[in-house]
């Protein structure tokens, strides 16, 4: 059975060329990048190369890129360190209701430390209104953190507008670009982004590596204290193979971005149109225009997400759901609730996220499977009466 992998927003297959690039740094150039001898120099040069590639990709300076262990650490760092460094200025933070838990749970933690957080509403497509951001700014606001693109429903937020507002009010602006980096063009200067989070495994890079961009001039404190790595800002022996792999993945992603996302966009729209034409009681979630090229998110009424996922899995199709049953917690996706879906509809959501390798045949197979599964599950649903 061919595997149809449509969960690229959860994680991606590491590209062979990325693995290839990493391999020498395990057994040949294994030196600690902070050492002085030639072996360590190899590691240091490789780290520099990766940093240069990544910085160039978002219009940043290399010394503004700090490697971390992934998107979650980057998000935690950006918020907690800003809170610490700027608490004298104020204790108010603005974010949205549809951020990733790495932002939301960090905000809740900050609230327990005495900070105040405004969680902005979104519209029914998951869009944040820049005017709402502006209205929420107070004299004691120290940070605005709005994600570049939502990981569940694919909505791309008006980052440049929000950045301009933040800049005009002298408030720092962080964006969680974990889903957008390598998938959407990003320019930190034009968009007035002061901090940006990214994670390697979302763009066919390795897991366990990420970065935080921090604009020069931003007062930044460490999150992981210890050794002098990353200009003394992020301690821990450099994960050289991970950094090299991330650099390679970024290089590949930037080079292929235009063509790849054009293809994905076409397949995405094809899938959506088949859903809407062929399955009753379907609702497409997320903005139809400002949307990640590879994201399809749909609710199939009267059925529950986990059951769909298991049946899809039996057909070799990997997908995900905002259903409560699939998350560690019991609550259904906070994103789907935030765009106004009632519990039981949110419960029947499917997220299908395409990759560079996804084919039209795979899309057809998947839609056919979903049609069948939805019909079967509806027949045993106490909510469905036809």
């Amino acid at each position, binding site marked *: 059975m061919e595997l149809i992998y449509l969960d690229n927003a959860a994680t991606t297959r590491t590209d062979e060329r990325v693995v290839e690039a990493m391999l020498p740094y395990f057994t040949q150039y294994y030196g600690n990048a902070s050492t002085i001898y030639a072996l360590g120099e190899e590691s240091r040069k490789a780290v520099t190369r990766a940093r240069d590639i990544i910085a160039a990709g978002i219009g940043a300076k290399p010394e503004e890129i700090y490697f971390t262990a992934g998107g979650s650490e980057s998000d935690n760092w950006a918020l907690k360190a800003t809170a610490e460094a700027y608490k004298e200025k104020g204790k108010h933070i603005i974010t949205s209701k549809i951020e990733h838990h790495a932002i939301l749970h960090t905000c809740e933690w900050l609230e327990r430390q005495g900070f105040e957080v405004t969680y902005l509403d979104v519209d029914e497509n998951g869009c944040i209104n820049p005017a709402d951001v502006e209205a929420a700014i107070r004299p004691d606001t120290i940070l605005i953190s709005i994600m570049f693109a939502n990981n569940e429903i694919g909505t791309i937020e008006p980052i440049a507008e929000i950045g301009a507002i933040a800049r005009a009010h002298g408030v720092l602006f962080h964006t969680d670009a974990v889903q957008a980096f390598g998938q959407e063009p990003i320019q930190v200067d034009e968009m007035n982004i002061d901090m940006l989070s990214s994670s390697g495994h979302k763009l066919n890079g390795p897991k366990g590596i990420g970065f935080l961009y921090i604009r020069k001039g931003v007062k930044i404190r460490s999150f992981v204290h210890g050794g002098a790595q990353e200009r003394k800002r992020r301690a821990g022996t450099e994960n050289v193979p991970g950094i090299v792999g991330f650099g390679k993945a970024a290089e590949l992603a930037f080079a292929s971005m235009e063509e790849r996302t054009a293809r994905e966009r076409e397949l995405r729209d094809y899938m959506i149109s088949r859903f809407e034409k062929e399955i009753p009681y379907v609702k497409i979630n997320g903005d139809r225009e400002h949307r990640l090229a590879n994201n399809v998110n749909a609710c199939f009424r009267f059925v*529950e997400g986990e059951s769909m996922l298991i049946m899809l899995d039996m057909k070799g199709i990997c997908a995900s759901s905002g259903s409560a*049953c699939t998350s560690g917690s019991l609550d*259904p996706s906070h994103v789907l609730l935030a765009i106004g879906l009632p519990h039981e509809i949110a419960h029947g959501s499917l997220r299908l996220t395409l990759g560079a390798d996804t084919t039209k045949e795979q899309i057809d197979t998947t839609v056919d499977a979903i049609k069948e599964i939805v019909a079967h599950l509806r027949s*045993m*649903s106490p909510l469905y009466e036809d």
Partner: protein
Amino acid sequence: MYSEKVMDHFQNPRNVGEIENASGVGTVGNAKCGDIMRIYLDIDDNGVIQDCKFKTFGCGAAVATSSMATELVKGKTVQEALLVTNKAVMEALDGLPPVKVHCSLLAEEGIHAALWDYAEKNGIVIEGLKKPKNDISEGEEEEEY
């Protein structure tokens, strides 16, 4: 993550459907996870469960425990059916992952709700049967972290 037995009952659920003019019908849900289960019982004059059917809107474990629970109570007396606890259902399914234990409670409560309905309709009292909760998630608490 699920045992083979769970997967079997999920893929080939036993007793899916409705019973017309059932002796007792019970619907329970878990407001937190949003899942809903409806159990239909056909109970004869000797208090023996002749048939049992279900409809479930829920996760794989919810479907499998519905299926197993209906199998387990069929042919049993009302009193015996009370012994079909969520633990019994889980054991019969070779266990459930920890996060899925609450799903099996849905099955237990579903049976109880249907029995309660049957008792009410017939004006009888089933010893040991408490009024079932509509929402089995009550009382659950998340810890701080």
